[in-house]
């Protein structure tokens, strides 16, 4: 399958907002979604690659990536009015419902690849969002870490809105 090219002008930098992480979960029979990153100044997906390098007797190196365990931290994750995920996670936290933190589907959308209405995305099912802590100084902060499952379906999303449609292309 051909690799799609970056949809920016030559040399143009991709704004951080073009890399979007979205959480999806079920509340009753309803699917609920929320973009992550509101009031978070800096957040990256860390792949935590398990790397093994060996060297043969000629001095050549052979490096293998055995696995990745991607995760993304959102700190601060402020308790904000209108935040459905904040309310949902807080409910799990107060019930100490540790077995229910792993019910999230996560989307990573790379809006710098694709065209309007067809932005490249990947969907991870059975992901975990862990509440790291809760507290803070002036405002209540509940930092979270997303653990991606690597149960990936690649595809596209048509828009960045809660009612976006995901169209799968290849399962890897």
């Amino acid at each position, binding site marked *: 399958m051909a690799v799609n090219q970056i949809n920016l002008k030559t040399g143009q930098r991709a704004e951080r*907002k073009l890399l*979007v992480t979205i959480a999806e979960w079920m509340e009753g029979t309803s699917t609920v979604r929320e973009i992550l990153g509101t*009031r978070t100044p800096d957040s990256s997906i860390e792949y935590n690659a398990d790397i093994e390098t060996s060297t043969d007797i000629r001095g050549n190196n052979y490096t293998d990536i055995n696995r990745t365990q991607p995760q993304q931290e959102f700190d601060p994750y402020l308790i904000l009015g209108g935040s459905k995920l904040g309310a949902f996670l807080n409910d799990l936290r107060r019930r100490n419902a540790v077995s229910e933190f792993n019910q999230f589907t996560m989307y990573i959308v790379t809006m710098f690849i694709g065209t309007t209405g067809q932005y490249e995305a990947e969907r991870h099912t059975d992901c975990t969002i862990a509440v790291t802590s809760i507290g803070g100084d002036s405002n209540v902060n509940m930092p979270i870490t997303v653990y991606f499952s690597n149960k990936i379906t690649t595809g596209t999303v048509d828009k960045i809105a*809660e009612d976006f449609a995901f169209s799968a292309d290849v399962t890897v």
Partner: protein
Amino acid sequence: MSIDKNNAFIDYLLKCPQMLNSPLYFNFINAKDNTNQIVTNSDDRSMSSPYVDGSVKRRYTYTIITFKSITDIPLAKAVGTDTRLPNENVEDLASFQAIIDWIAEQADKHEYPDFGENCQMDDIYTTTDAPRFDGINTDVSPSMAMYSIDIVIDYIDISKAIWKQS
């Protein structure tokens, strides 16, 4: 629709009863007794904080200056007595303090200037708990004391956010 933030702030400030008692000027110094001035400040872009969703925390700062005629009447009748006299200087400062108290009250109620749909208001506060005494102008008659307060408005500019939560 874009809203002029200065007009929004003026409209907001005019809700303060204390402001209605005095002529209010904008970026114009009229050093007469009991006049108030709004002076705009330009806040450095480094004060802005971008977030990963494309929204940006921004700041507007205003200075409110007031001029009050002063009295040279002492606080007590004579040295060694504890009889207080009414004092215009103390009363003037208290009246200006009322603006600070009003701003704090509005902040507690989350009542902010309306900067429009692309701005989520975050906070409004004065940088000090009491008015700043900036000095006395003795070149005019009567002499004028000048007091000022700085008012900070923090808001989130969501005009370029990638997603506006419904």
